[in-house]
């Protein structure tokens, strides 16, 4: 029983919170800019590598650089929007999807050229878990990740519900046409969307790297579960993305629990297939997702 909690449920919730952070960006971009951004995974990778560089330069703890890394990643993404997406602002969304795919390949190659392809880590050495109530084992890093992820999600909530820019983001997600006719500065809203999405993606990348390691394919591997989370929650629905991320993360981890007998239900190597299966199921049976998102 405690194995279930220690090795499946807690890691699942932690992974889910990381997916949720990534999925919010995907869903916001989809709602406001109206396309599925394939380069979103590379944004996560960039966040992790920028942090790695700062750690290697200073020797300080990775999470101290969270604010700086988020800001740097957001700046890079704003520059990418300027170069690649803004000229296509009024193009059909399939053009934007293809452009984002191209950008994904470019960024990944660039990351590999700059940082190399071997695995790296924020810190050497192993931390031991705290043991609570004799059998509950909790890793400090998991507590940190979960706390930070929740704090970021609360910040997103406050932004969307209580600030002028956040409300304008929701308005534009409802109707870009009416937003324009209302006098909303839509380019400003687009910039805000990139900043929020990129910042959260960078955080997801950093947390994932902090939990395991840094590698050039990490963002690409995250893309599938993160898209599945956004879809599960309903495209364009930030709260749905949070819920979807959590569900996908937990289900992925639970799928390797020994539900029947002593063998894992699903060999750990097939974990990635879980998100894929969920995504296919949603697309077939409920394309609007849990929170009635947009259907394309």
């Amino acid at each position: 029983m405690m194995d279930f909690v220690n090795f499946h449920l807690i890691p699942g919730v932690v992974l889910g919170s990381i997916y949720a952070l990534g999925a919010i960006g995907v869903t916001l971009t989809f709602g406001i800019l109206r396309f599925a951004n394939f380069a979103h995974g590379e944004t996560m990778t960039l966040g992790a590598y920028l942090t790695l560089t700062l750690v290697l330069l200073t020797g300080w703890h990775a999470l101290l650089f969270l604010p700086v890394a988020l800001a740097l990643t957001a700046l890079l993404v704003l520059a990418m929007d300027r170069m690649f997406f803004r000229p296509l602002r009024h193009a059909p969304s399939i053009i934007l999807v293809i452009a984002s795919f191209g950008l994904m390949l470019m960024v990944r190659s660039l990351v590999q050229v700059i940082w190399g392809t071997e695995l790296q880590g924020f810190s050497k050495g192993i931390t031991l878990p705290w043991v609570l109530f004799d059998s509950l084992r909790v890793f400090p890093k998991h507590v940190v990740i979960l706390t930070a992820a929740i704090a970021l999600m609360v910040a997103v909530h406050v932004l969307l519900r209580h600030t002028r820019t956040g409300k304008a983001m929701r308005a534009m997600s409802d109707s870009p046409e009416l937003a324009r006719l209302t006098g909303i500065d839509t380019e400003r809203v687009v910039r805000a969307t990139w900043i929020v999405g990129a910042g959260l993606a960078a955080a997801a990348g950093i947390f994932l790297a902090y939990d395991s390691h840094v590698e050039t394919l990490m963002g690409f591997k995250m893309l599938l579960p993160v898209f599945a989370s956004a879809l599960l929650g309903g495209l364009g629905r930030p709260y749905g993305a949070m819920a979807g991320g959590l569900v996908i993360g937990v289900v992925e981890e639970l799928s390797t629990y020994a539900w029947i007998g002593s063998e894992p239900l699903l060999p750990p190597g097939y974990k990635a297939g879980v998100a894929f299966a969920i995504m296919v199921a949603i697309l077939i049976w409920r394309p609007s997702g849990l929170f009635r998102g947009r259907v394309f």
Partner: protein
Amino acid sequence: MAAERPVLVLDRVTGGYGGAEIIHEISIILGRGEIVTLIGPNGAGKSSVMNAVLGTLVIGGGRILLHGEDITGTPPERVVRRGVSYVPQTANVFPNLTVNENLEMGAYVRTDDFRPRMDEMYELFAPLAGRRRSPAGTLSGGQRQMVAIAKALMVEPDILLLDEPTAGLSPRFREEIFAVVEDVNARGTPILMVEQNARQALGIADRGYVLVDGRNRTDGTGAGLLADPEVGAMFLGGGTAEPAPAPSPGAPIGTPAGTARGEARAGRRDPDARPPSAPGARRR
């Protein structure tokens, strides 16, 4: 009046949505303090005239003057900042935003404290006061229309453009909307309004224009147009479009307007009537 400069002038404006031209040399004048009504059959280009002013129509010729200044081709956000508020025909509220948030968005271009204005709006539209926190998409059609108008009034506009504000509303809400239009106008705001409820609209209008096939057909004072037999016939028949039953003699223009509207709506759904332009497909 004669010496005063009109607040809004369309001077032989031609334009479309990138393809064929939809409106041809349309001329319209909105004077200070006036209510001006545009009427015409479905597809006549009434909404396109509004879009021309807001800057979402591609203008091929002519000029649009706001307070005497040329604003032809100015993008919508700048037109709004110059004091023009627009309530589109469809999709005119943000459905997932609460009523309060819709009004806040209406005030987006304001940098001062707009809360007093918001309180005024809840007085003007009393039914909304109890629904401040409801998503606009959950309201009835009439209340949604109130939100749309209140949202447009948040900036205390110099000019208000209304595109069929009473379409599809019950008579009670229709009365209420017309009363608000008169009230807002009485406080000095000139209003350019597209309406299908012709009798009522012309009844409160200083002047009206009849558009057919993207062109000016007739214009005159509200009362003058109401008395014009050709206007009545056109309204029920859709003018040059498919033939329609002639109005029974003596039937008032306005009373069947609701009916005419109903027929018009039904006509829209008829795939043969206007094939490529289901309303939903036009503006999303």
